[in-house]
């Protein structure tokens, strides 16, 4: 694997982890623009737990503890944040991320604004393994009765309530578990690049991650995967095409076209690339004629 491909693969894997972290609350209708905050917490916590001048724990232990730590923070802030709705929730989660960033920059023992080197290195295999595990976990999670409850809350929380769904608890769980996954993503980031700097986890990152999820689609567990792959790979392809065409201007301005593409997607597929109906059609197509014949017989 060339260095370029490996670097792209790492970015893709991190994007996928982040996307699923934001997907879990989004599947129940909560918009979380605070991904960067959870990622920052996970990256610094895991790095500090592992570093020799921190606690010096093994990398794996540090990552798991960091995840639990971020989960605890996520749980604590979910209680006030989940009282807000829609755009106010977007603002509240955004504010959370800014607060985290501000604290991290001002902590001397975390290296302050200069950032913090991280001792143990996570090779590409670990990054890929974690991403695959996160994807599998989320597919499992969304297939459970809890996942069904979350999707019901997304559609009509009052009706879900009348059928006995504990709406508040379900949302807290989705938000907290999502926070843990973002924290895990941050931990993997820190250990792969061996350096954590709060400024890299800025609001632009949070916006991108939320876009992966919303443009990928929140109705099925395929959405964030498609969204993250799409967003990571398409701009690179644009760049290669532009270079092939010999136009530096095109290569540099590819984000203009990408931005126009995003607007177009929102117009054409406002519910995301992957919708429930589309998934059913694909499944029907893959199961082939036999399925169609059976349905016709019914």
């Amino acid at each position, binding site marked *: 694997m060339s260095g370029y491909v490996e670097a792209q693969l790492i970015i893709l894997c991190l994007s996928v982890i982040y996307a699923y972290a934001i997907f879990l609350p989004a599947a129940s209708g909560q918009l979380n623009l605070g991904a960067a905050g959870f990622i920052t917490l996970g990256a610094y916590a895991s790095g500090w737990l592992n570093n020799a001048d921190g606690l010096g724990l093994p990398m794996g232990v540090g990552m798991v503890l960091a995840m639990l730590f971020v989960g605890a923070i996520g749980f604590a802030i979910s209680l006030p944040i989940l009282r807000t709705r829609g755009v106010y929730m977007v603002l509240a989660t955004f504010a959370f991320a800014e607060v985290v960033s501000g604290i991290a920059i001002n902590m001397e023992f975390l290296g302050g604004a200069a950032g913090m080197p991280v001792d143990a290195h996570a090779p590409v295999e670990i990054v890929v393994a974690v991403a695959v595990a996160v994807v599998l976990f989320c597919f*499992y999670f969304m297939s459970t009765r809890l996942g069904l409850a979350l999707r019901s809350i997304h559609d009509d929380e009052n009706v879900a309530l009348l059928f006995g769904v504990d709406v508040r608890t379900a949302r807290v769980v989705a938000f907290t578990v999502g926070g843990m996954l973002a924290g895990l993503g941050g931990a993997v980031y820190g250990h792969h690049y061996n350096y954590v700097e709060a400024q890299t986890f800025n609001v632009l990152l949070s916006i991108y991650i939320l876009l992966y999820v919303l443009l990928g689609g929140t109705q099925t567990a395929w959405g964030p995967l498609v969204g993250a792959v799409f967003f990571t790979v398409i701009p690179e392809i644009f760049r290669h095409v532009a270079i092939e065409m010999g136009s530096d201007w095109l290569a540099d301005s590819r984000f203009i076209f990408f931005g126009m593409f995003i607007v177009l997607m929102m117009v054409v597929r406002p519910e995301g690339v992957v919708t429930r109906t589309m998934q059913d059609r694909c499944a029907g197509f893959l199961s082939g004629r036999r399925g169609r014949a059976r349905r016709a017989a019914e």
Partner: protein
Amino acid sequence: MAGNVLAVTGLHKSFGGLKVIDEVSFDVARGSRTALIGPNGAGKTTIFNLLTGVYPVDAGSVVLAGSDITDIPSKDRVVHGMSRSFQNIRLMPHLSTVENVMLGQHARAHSLGQLLFPLGLVARNRWRAEAEAALAEAGLDSYPGEVVANLPYGVQKRIEVVRAMISRPQLLLLDEPAAGLNDVETRQLQALLEQVSAIGVTILVVEHDMHFVRNLCDHVVVLNFGRKIFEGSPEEVHRSPVVLEAYLGTDEPGSGEGAAGAA
């Protein structure tokens, strides 16, 4: 009382200065098919919302199958044996037919183990099988995997009933089930409700279609301006001058059929 599934006593509800429900009391006998009727704005849907806990009551009590549920949260009432359908269909549009019905099972499956069981990954599990069987019994087995938003209105209405029934209620609340249905769909719905009644589930229905009420119900409670003005069999209601006056706003003796039609 042992013979009643539901006992509503002295119910009051105001929104601001507006008294919407004023001292309403009625009982629903076990196994009966009771209708709640009244002109627009009489408070029928408000009563349903008070029964299901969507709004808190100002005064009065609601006793379901012997337990006082007046103050318990909405999400716990289904466990006590109450389930409902909605005036405007409120199925989950992005869920398939079977998944919508499986939501109705939630109150029976909310242990941690059940919540974390991968229903969607295990193709043959008892919950899915139960939901599919319930749909089949209601004659709705043609569309198990379809997203409900794409289905005909009458079909969606019946899926709502199946979803409510799978929570195994003692009392099924139906808010204008026949509204917007054509004759064929109304007959299909009525057949489904006959099945529901036959297995011993009590039905309380808010309905404007008096023809539907007379075909289905054996007891009628009439509301007007938030008060109960009459209670009796469909025939008695049909003949009652009080009810006629409420619907027509005049004491001129009109034909009962006409009044019902206007309702």
